């Protein structure tokens, strides 16, 4: 299992999925044209993680996105939905102080995802 690392591209986010520290982070801009292809490895990682995670320890998911297209939005939602099935999951949604749209989107995800969810203003 261990760590999946995707380096940020011009239009794709930096992703780190660390099974040892139980820390998942997605940050930057996400506008891949073919979002399913881009996020495929993440879904594979998550499928495996759900069966092996230590649910006595917290799993922390941090989202620090500047922008994402609707395809990314959908897939990030799906990832969060799968991860929210785990016990002891905690989601942190970061947004820039002047970005009311990102704050709004965070609130929407909070509505959709059934897990502890915190909005953090940067």
């Amino acid at each position, binding site marked *: 299992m261990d760590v999946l690392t995707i380096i940020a591209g*011009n*239009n794709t986010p930096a992703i780190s999925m660390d099974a040892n520290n139980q820390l998942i982070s997605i940050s930057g801009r996400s*506008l*891949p*044209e*073919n*979002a*399913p*292809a881009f996020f495929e490895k993440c879904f594979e990682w998550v499928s495996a993680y759900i069966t092996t995670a230590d649910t006595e320890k917290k799993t922390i998911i941090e989202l620090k996105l500047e*922008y994402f*297209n*609707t*395809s990314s*939005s*959908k*897939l990030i*939602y*799906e990832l969060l939905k799968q991860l929210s099935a785990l016990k002891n999951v905690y989601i942190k949604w970061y947004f820039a102080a*002047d*970005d*009311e*749209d990102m704050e709004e989107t965070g609130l*929407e995800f909070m*509505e*959709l995802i059934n897990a502890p969810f915190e909005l953090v203003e940067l």
Partner: protein
Amino acid sequence: MHNLLPNQFTINRINGKEAYKNASDIYSLTSGNNLLLIYKGEINEHITSSVLNMAEKNMERIGEESMTRKRVFNVMVECLQNIAKHADEAITHTGKKYNSLFLIGQDEDGYYIVSGNAVYGSKVEEMERRLNLINSLNKEELKAYYLKIMANCSIDAKGGASLGFIEMARKSGNQLQYSFEAIDNVAQFFVLQTNIFKRKIA
């Protein structure tokens, strides 16, 4: 808001070898309408990237306010990626190719984004239905519709999440203006305009 097409063109046709003579007309036409960027041709992932980059830099350069820039950018991305995924630019059985159009302009109220692309005639009814539905919803209803699709629809083979038009309407805060015009007996030209008003600082 802005009526895209001016009532009269001073140029009917550009004679290639004498195009320089039309240059100032072209410059005036685009300045008058405050067109920031016009692109005609195929729209694919690479073109999308370039167009977005150009438009982003342009808005930074003119010092546009951050939230407005983000919303314009959002709309541009969804618009261009829709075309890259769904435009029927190449009709395979005839080998015919259609160009797409993308432009972004600005006036005192804000920005307007216009795109044009060929679609098979058979798609028109469903597209109209969807656009009319979106246009009929108020802000809260639009949000509810967006969340419903997010939670219930699966992503399609091309990676489309069926959220593009909705997102364009939400981010712009305005109705989507559109038209369909027959190009030939196979394809229609779908034109879509999204208007993004500048944020008023309260």
